[in-house]
């Protein structure tokens, strides 16, 4: 029974992967609209080319000038179906499986101006090169464009590649339980990064950290070294006692509460937008603590991955996940949050393990999930991670305007009337900076 079920699952997985994801050319039915400005620019460029080369014959598309005045129905977004004449919504149930898969592969676009990915480091490189060139120019060197290009190419060849976690499954040998417990406790309770290394032994204040390496002839320092060694040893003992107390507190927590804490930490690690190493380290560290935690981690991660796998298959089949009552965009967003592409999700069912030792139900193997996630990360690098602004745009704008008003009140101050709330002018700041009299004088209002 169990073997037959596993065989069926495997067959469905294989059919899904080959039939939907890998077998055909897909996506030809979909149209991708150009932004109006870029379309108009391309049209004008083509007109210029034809003007310069009269021999070039006109094509039918040259008679259709793309409009530049059309405002998108969703401000700030691209042109969409709401802007197309006669476009009618199609329910997901009426799409084919390939079309559903194609749609789920695509991340919704939030804005016309997407944030730069973390892998995009050209501003730093150009800034560094300009700084170097300016320094060289000040010191009497030559600053030429050729030199800059050469340096750019050199830096490009030496650019760091994304982290390759080749040791993903090789580091699964168990270490001492106490170390794992201490690391897990610090990981869970301090909510620090899972990729943190285990705490290193405290540095001794002086050389006696390695007394065996000392030359034997220096007997006059022996007493001092012993004192330092005792101090270092006492620190280690204190730290170990503190960790043991923390571990005891952890172990004394009610099981339900402890399960929730661990599951929240695991969920954070799985949905971490950073590297796969975060999820890997969290899983491996928690699995080393005890058998109970190991079972908990296996069941939690397995259930998460199995839920995603089943929801994806249901979406591809029916256009909607009946078990989790999620739509296609929600399931696709879950897959992206777990660091997987849709093809990777369909491959999840290739290797399964039992949900519990005495249970016939199987879930996708969490090691296989980490392997697929590592592959996806190697393919994309940091392309899916973007720079996040540290301040709100409105705050940056306010700060910039305040700076302008303070430095050039004759330019910026007279443009805003007092009491005009729509102008965004902060009168309290103007009072604080004591620029209001100067503004009034400049504007001829009289203060």
């Amino acid at each position, binding site marked *: 029974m169990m073997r037959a079920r596993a065989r069926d699952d495997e067959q469905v997985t294989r059919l899904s992967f080959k039939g939907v994801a*890998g077998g055909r*050319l897909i*996506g*030809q*039915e*979909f*149209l*991708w*609209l*150009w*932004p109006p400005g870029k*379309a108009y620019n*391309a049209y004008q460029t083509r007109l210029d080319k034809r003007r310069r080369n009269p021999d070039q014959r006109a094509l039918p*598309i*040259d008679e*259709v000038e793309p*409009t530049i005045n*059309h405002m998108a129905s*969703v401000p700030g*977004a*691209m*042109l*969409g*179906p*709401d*802007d*197309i*004449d*006669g*476009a*009618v*919504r*199609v329910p*997901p*149930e009426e*799409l*084919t499986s390939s*079309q559903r898969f194609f*749609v789920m*592969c*695509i*991340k*919704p*676009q939030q804005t016309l101006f997407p944030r730069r*990915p973390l892998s995009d480091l050209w501003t730093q490189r150009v800034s560094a090169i300009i700084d170097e060139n300016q320094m060289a120019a000040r010191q009497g060197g030559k600053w030429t464009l050729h030199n800059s290009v050469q340096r750019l190419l050199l830096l490009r060849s030496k650019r760091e590649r994304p982290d390759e976690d080749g040791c993903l499954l090789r580091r699964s040998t168990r270490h001492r339980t106490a170390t794992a417990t201490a690391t897990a406790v610090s990981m869970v309770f301090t909510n620090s990064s899972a990729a943190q290394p285990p705490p290193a032994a405290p540095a001794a204040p002086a050389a006696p950290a390695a007394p065996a390496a000392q030359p034997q002839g220096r007997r006059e320092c022996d007493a001092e070294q012993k004192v330092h060694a005792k101090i270092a040893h006492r620190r280690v003992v204190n730290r170990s006692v503190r960790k043991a107390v923390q571990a005891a507190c952890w172990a004394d927590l009610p099981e339900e509460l402890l399960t929730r804490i661990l599951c929240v930490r695991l969920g954070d690690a799985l949905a971490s937008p950073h590297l796969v190493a975060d999820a890997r380290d969290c899983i491996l560290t928690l699995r080393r603590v005890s058998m109970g935690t190991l079972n908990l981690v296996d069941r939690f991660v397995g259930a998460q991955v199995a839920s995603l796998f089943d929801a994806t298959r249901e979406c591809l089949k029916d256009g909607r996940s009946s078990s989790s009552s999620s739509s*296609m*965009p929600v399931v*696709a967003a879950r897959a*992206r949050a777990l660091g997987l592409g849709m093809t990777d999700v369909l*491959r999840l069912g*290739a*290797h*399964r*393990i039992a949900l519990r030792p005495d249970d016939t139900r199987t879930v996708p*193997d969490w*090691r296989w999930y980490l*392997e697929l996630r590592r592959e996806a990360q190697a*393919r*994309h690098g940091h*392309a899916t991670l973007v720079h996040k602004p540290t301040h709100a745009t409105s705050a940056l704008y306010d700060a910039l305007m305040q700076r302008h008003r303070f430095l050039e009140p004759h330019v910026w101050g007279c443009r805003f009337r007092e009491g005009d709330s729509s102008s965004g002018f902060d009168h309290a700041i103007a009072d604080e900076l004591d620029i209001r009299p100067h503004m009034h004088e400049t504007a001829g209002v009289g203060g």
Partner: protein
Amino acid sequence: MEPDRRRTLVLHPLTQEVYHVPNESLLHDSNHPVVMPYDAFEKMGATGQLSGERLLHHDRAQASSFNVSQIVAVRLRQRGASSGGRPTYAWASRMVRRRRRRPAARARRAPRAARSLTH
């Protein structure tokens, strides 16, 4: 309803809903798609960078010239009197995702530690 494989679809940029575009709204559709490699498609799809001009730009990087036959004119909905009653158009392109290469042999194998747990 039986799905129609030949109809033209367009994706809503925010909600990911699929819309059908009638043939009357399309001009000069030579059904010539841009062929995208799987990795490029997956990367652009995962980062939300799929748009018509980016597809053509990617194709231009592969080939030497700009292929005009890959452009379709789409008639836009009239709003107000800004167009003076004349139909307005936008440009669009079609795209086909190329078949993915087979996964590497190492990736197809079961993970080492998982074999002992697999039933």
